[in-house]
């Protein structure tokens, strides 16, 4: 059944079922190069070989054997590298499982539904992952909501509207954003962005939505330097380069003939982008978005600085929260026993979450490709 899941998500192509063991390299040497062929062609093989012909054939066979040896070594080395990656992945999953087993045994499914995080409770700590899971999902989702339109907008600008002279500087600037270490983002978020948001942006939004029935709970005060919203904004800035770079590259692959046909029929730039460019590059754009989402889910240090480390779930996005990676980073150094096992279980949950997100992305892509008739 697991195999079927792997097939359906497209992570394993069905063709693996048809793989047979590749045939062993044949003992006979491959066809020799041109002169030898012509020479061999003149040998009369109905008679036994003369001494000279025999020794020449032997030396040629020796050379070919040594070349084959090099080939075999290379083949085995690359096979070993590929298999060791699988072993490494398997080893990590197994060690996560072993570390998390005490917590799984003690808490079972309640771990996923409990919000309380009390590691020092006697006789047994009460720990639950609902707070970190909520924080991880909401911060990543919010980061995507902010970053995807902006990233796509930047790539559309770069491919359609930007004067050529500005194209390279802007592209380089975006790619430099990707090179900034995440802890610098954390520091900048803590010292610059947090206070700015707490003093200007958050109070304005809180006042704006103060009378709207549902939104005034989501955008409720008090304004905080460290909040879920701040972390989402930092994550959005961090994943922007991924979306922009990949989208820009796939947008450039749209055949000019298609775009010009649309322009010629009287479409505006927006209509060309929405109806020609984006449908053509759907698969690549979604791939870029999924890559960015993968990064946002796992980001640790930048989030740990600005999210506030509060395990309770609160309705307002301007309240402090925590994510799985920030929780592990904060508490792992001093944890032991059941507390440590729960943190490892959190890590395992993040692993599963990321895997699920990637699998869903793959399924979506496969469905799109099927609809396109591929």
């Amino acid at each position: 059944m697991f195999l079927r899941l792997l097939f359906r998500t497209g992570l394993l192509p069905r063709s693996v079922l048809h793989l047979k063991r590749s045939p062993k390299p044949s003992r006979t040497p491959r066809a020799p190069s041109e002169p030898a062929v012509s020479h061999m062609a003149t040998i009369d093989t109905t008679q036994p070989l003369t001494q000279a012909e025999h020794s020449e054939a032997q030396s040629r066979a020796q050379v070919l054997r040594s070349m084959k040896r090099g080939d075999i070594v290379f083949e085995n080395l690359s096979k070993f590298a590929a298999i060791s990656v699988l072993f490494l992945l398997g080893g990590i999953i197994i060690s996560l499982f072993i570390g998390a087993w005490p917590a799984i045994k003690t808490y079972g499914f309640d771990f996923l539904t409990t919000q309380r995080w009390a590691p020092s409770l006697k006789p047994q700590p009460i720990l639950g992952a609902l707070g970190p899971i909520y924080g991880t999902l909401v911060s990543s989702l919010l980061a995507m909501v902010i970053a995807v339109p902006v990233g796509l907008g930047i790539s559309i600008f770069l491919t359609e509207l930007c004067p050529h002279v500005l194209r390279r500087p802007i592209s380089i600037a975006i790619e430099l954003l990707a090179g900034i270490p995440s802890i610098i983002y954390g520091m900048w978020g803590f010292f610059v962005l947090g206070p700015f948001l707490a003093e200007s942006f958050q109070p304005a939004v809180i006042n704006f939505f103060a009378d709207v029935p549902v939104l005034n709970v989501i955008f409720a005060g008090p304004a905080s330097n460290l909040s879920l919203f701040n972390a989402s904004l930092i994550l959005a800035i961090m994943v922007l380069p991924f979306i922009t770079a990949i989208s820009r590259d796939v947008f450039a692959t749209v055949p000019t003939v298609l775009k010009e046909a649309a322009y010629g029929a009287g479409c505006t730039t927006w209509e060309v982008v929405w109806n020609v460019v984006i449908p053509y590059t759907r698969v690549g754009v979604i791939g870029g978005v999924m890559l960015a989402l993968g990064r946002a889910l796992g980001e640790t240090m930048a989030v740990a600085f600005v999210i506030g480390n509060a395990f309770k779930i609160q309705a307002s996005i301007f309240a402090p929260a925590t994510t799985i990676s920030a929780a592990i980073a904060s508490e792992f150094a001093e944890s032991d026993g059941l507390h440590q096992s729960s943190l490892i279980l959190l890590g395992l949950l993040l692993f599963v979450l990321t895997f699920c997100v990637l699998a869903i992305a793959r399924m979506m892509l496969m469905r799109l490709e099927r609809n396109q008739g591929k």
Partner: protein
Amino acid sequence: MKLSSILAAVGLVMGLAAPVANAADISGAGATFPFPIYAKWADAYKKETGNGLNYQSIGSGAGIKQIVAKTVTFGATDAPMTAEELKKAGLVQWPMVMGGIVPVLNVEGIKPGELVLDGPTLANIFLGTVKTWDDAAIKKLNPKLALPSTSITVVRRSDGSGTTFNFTDYLSKISADWKSKIGAAASVEWPVGVGAKGNDGVAGNVGQTKNSIGYVEYAYAKQNKLTYANMINKAGKVVGPTIEAFQAAAANADWANSPGYYQILTEQPGDASWPITAATFILMHAEPQDKAASGEALKFFAWAFKNSKMAEELDYIPMPTAVVGLIEKTWANDIKVK
């Protein structure tokens, strides 16, 4: 570049790095509470004797874990271990310095020492029942102070902390509500507030966040120029976090009759006592694996006890001479470094 030249360069760098990595240092890890004074002592000790001290300020909880795992020569904690816990882990514990934990705040217009708080109000702030700075409870204690109507942002610890242990112990003593809901531990379920790592994290957060309140060891408040609040102690008097106030509280400790030197100094009697005073402890193995390193560490601590003037400069209280004598006897009897 050719592969051989790359490999040669890597080998050269590694060869140069190796002797530097071998320079022996006394290694310790634990509480952020005494980090300023340990850093000062380490600096002076290195200048005097050439031996360095490598202290990782990672929090009491992590410090206990590291010494139990024998990855460091000594651990430091403000949350003392009981005699049974010490026996089980095979550790020896003694107090090194004492200091005070002060509430620090960041409210425009309030200067250090102007705000007065009492235990129950502080507990209610950290419980989340007192939500704004102009709440009636705070106003009652500060009739003449202009308090804004902004919300209080509570800053507390996100890691396992001896400072938290002493602070929550104090709150448990003066607030039955706190004791039943939260209790005293190194790591508690905080009902409100943002979490920061270490005393330095809380100090940084309070400094950055307007209308916030937190609790830090006094040296951090002094070094970061934070606004601290005065407290009302057990005798009902308003005291500020001065070294005399800490000493008055510390004078009540009965070190001679405490197994493992286990003493909690919060809410001590006395007109001049600071209510949230704490001692910070060192943990070492009774039978250490690396006897030479432990011997060096004990030499450092003996030197530190002689140079207690440096502690006073940072507003820590050194251990009384009589207690130092007791501690050195404990070393001779319990720690096997020969």
